[in-house]
């Protein structure tokens, strides 16, 4: 029942992502990271190259910390209507003048996979955090590409109820609940983001996660680690789609600059 909602939300988000890329090209207006806006003036045809205005710049070229950022992973919000999982993730970061950035992310994950154990109702849920270092490359005006590495750690619990049928003796039902579980992993990331409106950016981040350690049990193994994924994959990719707000640097838009 929840699946159509998720699909519609995904389509909307996808449209926003595409639209963010296209909106910047309308009438040739380009808002850039260097806070220079080229504004065609209808009263002075042909003046594009001459009337380039440096509208404002609050960015200090000398400060070591150039700007901060707040990130919301909107893709994970689409899991809220899903019956199989709930996820939410936010992050903050700062970037230096040499384009290196430190970021911290935190999130909550709960997964109710039907196929984890076929005769069991299973849930794994908990909180996780990641800390990482990025290097950002300004690929084009308003467009960033970055690479980085992260370390992640999850604090979680899992529980399940399973049932084995017997017409003769009667069904057998039992539960398990394991708390205080921990896991950690490393990640390498590749991402790109594009200015959407003003200080808002839309972007994606492709991550390759490598599981380092986690609490194991036999024979009923932990199926899912919040923030990492399924334990059967010791290396696993992931994708984040996010919206980012830049703090401490004024980005000029058409509206604010005219």
């Amino acid at each position, binding site marked *: 029942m929840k699946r159509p909602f998720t699909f519609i939300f*995904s389509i909307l988000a996808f449209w926003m992502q595409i639209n963010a890329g296209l909106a910047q090209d309308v009438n040739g207006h380009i808002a850039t990271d260097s806070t220079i806006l080229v504004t065609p003036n209808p009263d002075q045809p042909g003046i594009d190259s001459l009337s380039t205005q440096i509208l404002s710049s609050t960015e200090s070229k000398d400060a070591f910390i150039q700007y901060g950022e707040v990130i919301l992973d909107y893709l994970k919000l689409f899991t809220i209507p899903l019956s199989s999982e709930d996820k939410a993730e936010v992050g903050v970061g700062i970037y230096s003048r040499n384009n290196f950035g430190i970021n911290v992310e935190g999130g909550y994950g709960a997964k109710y996979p039907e196929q984890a154990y076929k005769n069991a109702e299973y849930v794994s849920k908990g909180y996780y955090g990641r800390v990482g270092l990025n290097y950002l490359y300004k690929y084009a005006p308003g467009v960033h590409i970055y690479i980085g590495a992260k370390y992640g750690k999850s604090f979680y619990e899992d529980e399940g109820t399973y049932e084995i049928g017997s017409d003769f003796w009667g069904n*057998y039902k039992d539960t398990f609940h394991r708390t205080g579980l921990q896991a950690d992993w490393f990640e390498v990331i590749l991402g790109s983001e594009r200015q959407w409106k003003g200080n808002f950016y839309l972007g*994606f981040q492709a991550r390759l996660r490598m599981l380092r350690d986690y609490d194991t049990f036999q024979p*009923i193994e932990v199926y899912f680690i919040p923030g990492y994924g399924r334990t059967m994959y010791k290396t696993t990719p992931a994708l984040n789609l996010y919206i980012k707000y830049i703090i401490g640097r004024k980005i000029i838009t058409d509206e604010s600059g005219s």
Partner: protein
Amino acid sequence: MKNNNILYLFLFFGLMALVELSGGCEECKDCGIAYKESVVNMKFFNIDSLNKVNIALVEVEDSLAKVNEEIDNGNTDLIEIKTELEIQKASLEATQKDITQGKIKIEEVTGLNALQPLYFRDSTTNDSLTVFPFPLSMHTNTSTLHIEIDNRLDTLTVDYLRAEDVSNNFILIRAYDLSVGSSTYDSTKVICNKDSCLSHETTIYVYF
């Protein structure tokens, strides 16, 4: 041009995201209660009947030898009796073979604290079997079974250890290291060809 490339990347990863989300909604087709309880294989040998059949067979063979001797001496009146004895012998030999193989018909099995009786029927002949998979209780380390064969009711108690296991993503209770705790049969023998056997790797031979 650069902007277009970035747009394509957004498109690509956006599609990947959609695939990932839609893939997470796959429904599990064979999920639910698993009817995969532990069983032990049982074989029954009716030794009392076998002894009777053996004695009868010896008597028939002795009679047949005497009849053959008389016929060889020219007494042709015994040919019809010879035929009857040969039929009896064949029947007894067939019965002897069935008993030796453990082929038997169990009328009914009930269990202490079990929900309902258990009936074994060959799926094709609705006749006797030679090996009977008896379900073991997953609730305790002992299963007490009441077995009715030829209007004779016996009780057999099987002791074992239990452990959780996972097979093909099903959580199961395995029974292992089986032994016969008590029995009203003449004798029993637990056959396990390893140091430790799971219940389905174990066969209990019952003699009565």
